[in-house]
C-alpha cells in the first residue's frame, strides 16, 4: 500500500490479516474460541474506526494494537509469575534448537502461565517483532523494565519447556496438532548443563 493511500475496506482487511490476527489472538488468549472472538472483535472495531487510520501502511500494526487492547480490556484475572521464574539461567538455553523442536501445546501452556504484563511484552517481541525500545514506547514503561520482563518471561518459557512430562500442568482444552518431538529439545537442553 502506498503512503497516504486510502485505507482498505474491511473485507480486504479480513482477507489479508485474519490469519495473523487469529494466531496472535490464540497466543494471547490461549484458546480457539477466545481467539476467534477476539479476532472478530478487532474487525468489528476496524469496520467502525478505519477512517481514523491515517497511514494505510500501518494497518497491520494498528490491528495488532487493537487486538492487544481488546485482550487486555477483557482480562481481569491476574496470574502472578512464580518467583522461581525470575531466576535467569543461561544454561537453560539449549545449544541448538529449531522451531520443530518446540512443542506448540507446551509452548502455549507456558505462555498461558505468564502474567499479562509479561505475556504482552513477550508477544510484542516475538509476534510483532518490536524492538525493546519500541516495546517501551508502546507500553509506556522504562527500557530496563522491558528487558527485565523479557528475560523473566523467556526464562519462564525455558523452564516450562524443559520440565519433564510428569511435572506438566494438565492441559485439556488446547487442541493444536503440532506435537513435535520435544524429546530432542529436552535432550539438547540437559546435555548442555
Amino acid at each position: 500500500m502506498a503512503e497516504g493511500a486510502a485505507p482498505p475496506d474491511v473485507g480486504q482487511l479480513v482477507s489479508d490479516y485474519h490469519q495473523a490476527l487469529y494466531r496472535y489472538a490464540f497466543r494471547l488468549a490461549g484458546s480457539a474460541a477466545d481467539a476467534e472472538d477476539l479476532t472478530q472483535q478487532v474487525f468489528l472495531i476496524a469496520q467502525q474506526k478505519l477512517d481514523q487510520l491515517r497511514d494505510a501502511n500501518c494497518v497491520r500494526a494498528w490491528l495488532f494494537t487493537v487486538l492487544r487492547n481488546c485482550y487486555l480490556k477483557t482480562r481481569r484475572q491476574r496470574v502472578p509469575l512464580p518467583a522461581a521464574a525470575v531466576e535467569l539461567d543461561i544454561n537453560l538455553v539449549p545449544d541448538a534448537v529449531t522451531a520443530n523442536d518446540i512443542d506448540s501445546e507446551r509452548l502455549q501452556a507456558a505462555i498461558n502461565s505468564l502474567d499479562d504484563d509479561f505475556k504482552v511484552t513477550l508477544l510484542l517481541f516475538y509476534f510483532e517483532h518490536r524492538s525493546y525500545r519500541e516495546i517501551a514506547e508502546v507500553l509506556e514503561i522504562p527500557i530496563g523494565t522491558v528487558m527485565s520482563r523479557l528475560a523473566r518471561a523467556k526464562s519462564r518459557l525455558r523452564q516450562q519447556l524443559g520440565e519433564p512430562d510428569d511435572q506438566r500442568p494438565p492441559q485439556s482444552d488446547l487442541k493444536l496438532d503440532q506435537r513435535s518431538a520435544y524429546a530432542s529439545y529436552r535432550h539438547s537442553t540437559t546435555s548442555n548443563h
Partner: protein
Amino acid sequence: MAIDRRTLEQLEACRPGSDDLQSADMAELARRVAEDPEVREAYRRAQQWDAAVGEAIERVNVPGDLAERLMKALDGAAAKSPIDSDAATVDPAALGTAAMIAAVGPDSPHSGAALDERTDTDEQATVALSDGGATGEHRTSRAGARTGWSRRRWLTAGLTVAAAVVVGAFVSQQFGRGEQTALETLADGWMAELQPTWLDVAKAPPRFEIPDSVTGEAIGWQRIGKIGGVRGVAYKLSHAAAGTARLFVVPLARGGLPTSPPTGPQSATGGKSIGYWKTNGLVYVLVVDGDDRSYRTFVSTARMPVA
C-alpha cells in the same frame, strides 16, 4: 556460565537477526560479546533460541472457514449496527461504554499506527451514536444532562442509585444466593458444551428468541442440553463497543430471579460477567466476556429511570 543479570537481560532483549546489538543502549553488551567468549556463546544461543521460538509461536492452525465466518459477522453488524441498538437504549453509563470504542482502539502515537488522536470521550460517544442514527433524542437528553442538571440533582441521583444497589445486593444475598450458584454452575457447563459451529440466527426456535432487553448482534445459535439435562438454546452475541457474549435461554423452574435483566452483573469471574433473570417461564443467563461496563452495554436500560 556466570554472566551478570544486566548482561543477561540485555542479550535477551536483542531480536534475532536484528541490529539491536549496535544500538547505543547495548554498547557495553556489544563490547562484551566481542571480547568475552562466554558472553558471545550466550548471545549466540539466545539468538538461536529466539529465532526458533519466534517461528514456533506463529505456528497456529487457523480454522479454514474463519474468514467466511468473520465476513458474515461483519455483514450482520453492518446491516443492523450494534451501536444503533445501543443508541436506542443508552444511559450515561452506557454512553461511557460507547466511548470506550475509541479507548479500545490504539490512541498512542507510539503504537506504530498513525491515528487521529481524538480523546474527548463525549465527542466519541456522540459520534458513535450519530453513526447509529435515531440519535437526536439521546443527544438532546445528554446535552441536557450535561448542562441542565445541578450538582445537587446529580448527587441525589447518585445516592438513589447507590441505595438501590445496596438494597439490591442485600436482597440478592438473602434470597438469591442458592439460585445464583446453581445457575453459574450450569452456565459453566453450557459454555464448555458449546460447539465451534453456530447456526443461522434466522432459523433459531422462536420460542427461545432473544428478548428486546438484550442488545448486541446475534451471530449464531445452537442447542444446549447435555449439561444439567436442561434443553435450551445458546446465542452468540457481538457488540462493537462491548465485545462478545453468550445468552443461554432455558426453560427452568426457578424462583426468586429478577424478571428483567439486572443492570449490573450478578457475578464476575474469570474475565466474564454474568447476569440472569426469568421471564415467561424461561431463564436467561447472559455471560459477557468483559467487565461490568461491557455487561451493561449488552443490557437495555431503556425502561429504567435514570434517576
